[in-house]
Structure formats: C-alpha cells, structure tokens
C-alpha cells in the first residue's frame, strides 16, 4: 500500500519532469532566436536605422526606413485584398457548408495553403508584372494578399461556425433578412476571433521573402507610388546578408530584429483580440 503510493508519486514526478522538458524544448529556440537577434542586431539599431535610407554600397551608416515603411505598405495592400475576400469567403463556407461551391472553395484554400510561397510570387509576376512591364508594390501586395486568403478564410469559417444557431434565429425572428443577420449579427459575434485569425495571417506574410523577389523587387529609395517597386524588410535583410560588408551584416541583423518584433507585436495583439472574443461555447 505504502509502496504503491510511493511508486505512483515517483511516476508522477517523472512525467511532470518530462512535460517540463518538452515545454522547454519548444520555448528554447524562440528565446535563442530572440537573444541572438538582440545581441547581434541591437548594436546596429539606432535612430538612423529607423529614419534614414540605405547608404551607398560599402559605406557605413544609413538605415532601413524605406524598407520598414515598405513592409507596412505591402502588409496593408495584402490586407486590403486578402481580408475582405477571406472573411466573406470564410463566412460563406460556414453559413452554406454543403454547397458544391463551398466544397470547391475549401479544397482550393487547403491547396493554396500548401503552395510554396515563391509560386505565389510567380503568379503575381505573370498576372501583374508582365502586363505592366515593371515591378511594383501592387504586385507584391497581391502575392501576399493571395497568400493571406486561405488562412483568414479557414479561421473565419471555424469561428463563425461556432456562433450558436440561437443567435441567428434571434435575429431572423426579429424580421432581419438573412444577409443582414449574417453581416450585422453573426460576423460581429465572431469578430474578435476573426481578428485573431487575420493577425496570425498577417504575421505570417510579414516575413515572406520569396513572393516579393520578382514582384515588389525592393527599392533603395522612398517610393510613394504603389505601381513602382518598393523596399521591404525581408528583401533588404536578404540583400544585406549576402553583401560583403560588415556594417551591412550588422544592419541585416537589426532588420531581422525589427521584423521579428513586428511579428511579435502582431501576435500579441492577436492574443489580446482572442481574449475579447465572447464565449461561443
């Protein structure tokens, strides 16, 4: 009796230890990356980095102001394209789950999720860059926007499906038409969850490099025209990292640190939004 109890307690402790180690194994890479980025990138982070354009090749100094803004512009463009389509599409999938269109769209979204990001870049290249004969922010935004759609669509579908039927019926019984019930009652009820999905999707595309290589292309200068090439943090990091200059290497690390910070902030916002979701179960 006493012995069995001791054995059980011992087993319990071993299992708790294993669980702890697994958690540690998940967290370690994240902290290593952050620590490493901070130690290497922080030294190159200064006011100039956020306010200046890149310097001439090999010259120390200069910054990534245009790339930071460029990334924000690209994310915005992607959002403008991807969010409405994703949210409305996901809502459709949830409200009309068994139509042939839904099955097709769901399948397409899953396939799209698996398509390598560089192929998305190629697609935008063929669709927009070739007809316009030059690289542009728009084409980069389209490439990222298309990548955003499946993530937003599937998370929206999941969360909208959780909205209880009783909420829909309450609205319909008031004499609110179905479409209005969906747009003004169902979607708002799921809103915080949808926002979380959007944030996670945005964080994912913020760091994408491949789809921008032959779309947004990069730019060493400011660009106010979305029909012209635009700088982006991942592109700039890539260009600096493969350059032969030490100062640029340091700036590449700093750029990576800024990019990761942006992604982290977006993810934390997503958590906050998720916490505000009204309970659906």
């Amino acid at each position, binding site marked *: 009796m006493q012995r069995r109890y001791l054995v059980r307690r011992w087993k319990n402790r071993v299992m708790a230890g294993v669980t702890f180690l697994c958690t540690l194994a998940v967290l370690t890479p994240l902290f290593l990356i952050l620590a490493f980025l901070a130690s290497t990138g922080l030294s190159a982070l200064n006011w100039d980095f956020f306010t200046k354009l890149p310097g001439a090749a090999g010259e120390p100094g200069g910054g990534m102001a245009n790339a930071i803004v460029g990334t924000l512009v690209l994310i915005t463009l992607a959002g403008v394209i991807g969010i409405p389509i994703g949210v409305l599409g996901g809502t459709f999938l949830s409200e009309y789950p068994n139509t042939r269109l839904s099955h097709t769209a769901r399948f397409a979204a899953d396939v799209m999720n698996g398509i390598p990001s560089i192929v998305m870049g190629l697609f935008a290249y063929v669709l927009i860059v070739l007809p316009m004969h030059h690289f542009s922010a728009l084409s980069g935004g389209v490439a990222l926007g298309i990548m955003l759609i499946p993530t937003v669509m599937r998370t929206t579908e999941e969360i909208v499906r959780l909205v*209880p039927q009783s909420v829909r*019926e*309450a*609205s319909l*019984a*008031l004499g*609110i038409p179905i479409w209005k019930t969906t747009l*003004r009652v169902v979607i708002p009820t799921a809103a915080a969850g949808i926002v979380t999905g959007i944030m996670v999707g945005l964080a994912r595309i913020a760091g994408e490099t491949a789809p921008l290589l032959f779309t947004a292309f990069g730019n060493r200068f400011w660009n106010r025209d979305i029909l012209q090439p635009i700088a982006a943090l991942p592109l700039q990091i890539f260009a600096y990292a493969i350059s032969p200059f030490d100062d640029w290497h340091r700036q590449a690390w700093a750029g990576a640190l800024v990019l990761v910070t942006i992604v982290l902030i977006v993810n934390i916002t997503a958590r906050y939004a998720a916490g505000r979701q009204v309970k*659906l179960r």
Partner: protein
Amino acid sequence: MQTRTPALIDHTTGIQAQDVHAWFDRLHALRGISMTVPERKVTAVIGPSGCGKSTFLRCINRMHELVPEARVSGRVLLGQENVYDEAADPVLVRRRIGMVFQKANPFPTMSIYNNVAAGLTLAGERDRRKVEQIVEQSLRAAALWDEVKDRLHKPGTSLSGGQQQRLCIARALAVSPEVLLMDEPASALDPASTLRIEELARELANDITIVIVTHNMQQAARVSDFTGFFLDGELIEYGPTNDLFTKPRDRRTEDYITGRFG
C-alpha cells in the same frame, strides 16, 4: 373566402392555421393542424415532448422553412392574409409575429440597450430619440426597466437567466409585433422568474395575441384562455382552457392532463 371556426370568429388579427403540414426531410412532424388562435388572448399549446409544438409555432412565423430540408404546406392566416401566400415576404411576416425562445438568447456582443434596439436599428431606423423611446417602452412592457435602467450599456449577457428572458421579450416587443409566440419561455427559469413571465404574458395579451408552448400544465391553466393539446403532430383537442382541463372530450387529452402519459 375560407371557413372559420364559428366560436372564435370575430377576431381580425388572430391566427388561423388551416390544414398545416410540416416535414423535416421525410419526417412528417405536423399532420394537418387547423386551429384558430383568437386575437388578444393567451393560447397555450401543450403536449408531450416531440409532438410538434415548437414546429407548429415555427410554422406560424415562417421560421420552420429556414431548417434545411424542411417543408410546410397549408395556410396560416394572420388576420386576413395568408403568410404563405406567393406574395408574402417572410421577413415582414416575422416582423409582425415575434418569437421568444426556450433558452434566452440575447445577442452576446450587444449591450442591454442595443439588444432591445436591434430590431429597429438593424432595419435601418436612424431616429435616435425614437429608438430611445421605444427601448424604454419595451423594457417597461417586459417589466425589466426598473432593474436595468441604470446599466443599459452593460452586456445583455450580464443579466440573470430570468432577466435575460425578459430582455428577449422586450427585444421582440420593440418591433411592435401583433402576435408573440413563446416557446417554453420559462422552462429554464426558477419559480419566481417563471411567475413573472406568466404575469407578463397575461398583461401583454391586453394588446397583442399570445401563443405559449408549455410543458407545464399548471402553467397552461394559470396563464391561458384557450388550450390546444397536440399529440404526434396532430391537434387532438382545442378549446377554452377551463373546459379542456375540467372536462376533456378526448380520452387522450384526459390521459395526458391526468399524467397518465407524456
């Protein structure tokens, strides 16, 4: 234009179901219900679980057809108009026939105020003053105003179960329906809240027509003027509540109200 049940003939915005059948896919849930619900009275619908009470209610305000694979046949007259007429708009029908559900279902993201206002604002009412007025009126009519007037902008879900149900009644009243359908509105509530809902049903019947589904025979006896007994999708017996409970004409009604089955 159509035959009416003679005893209840003089009511104009009552409801007349005429040979109403309802299906869920293959399941024949209502088998030819003909029933006249008089204006400004409380009519109770009783019967064992699964006999089609909710389905009947949902046929009246055209909610039944929203269930995939569900079908209805027959006519339901609201006043003189058939709600299933080709030209009838189900959205307008539901505006005129309000509904309160078994489980209180306030909109979870909306405040108390916005819950009550929802039927108006979502239909495009812009006049703030008018909405404010109607919200207050409706909350008073639902006997909830005094309890919530100081916290109108708190979430509707912050109220107790009984208060939430009265909130749902206020929400339904705000679009000034002519008929209010109540599907076991008190079945999830404690005795005190139940009593309040019953009083409310009686009071509301001064102005509008009430149809209330209940499992509770005492409740039907307390609250209603007329009672219909449903069994297996059929209306077995229908008449003044007092008669139905004291001298039922059908054996099955008697069995049910004396608790021999159901």
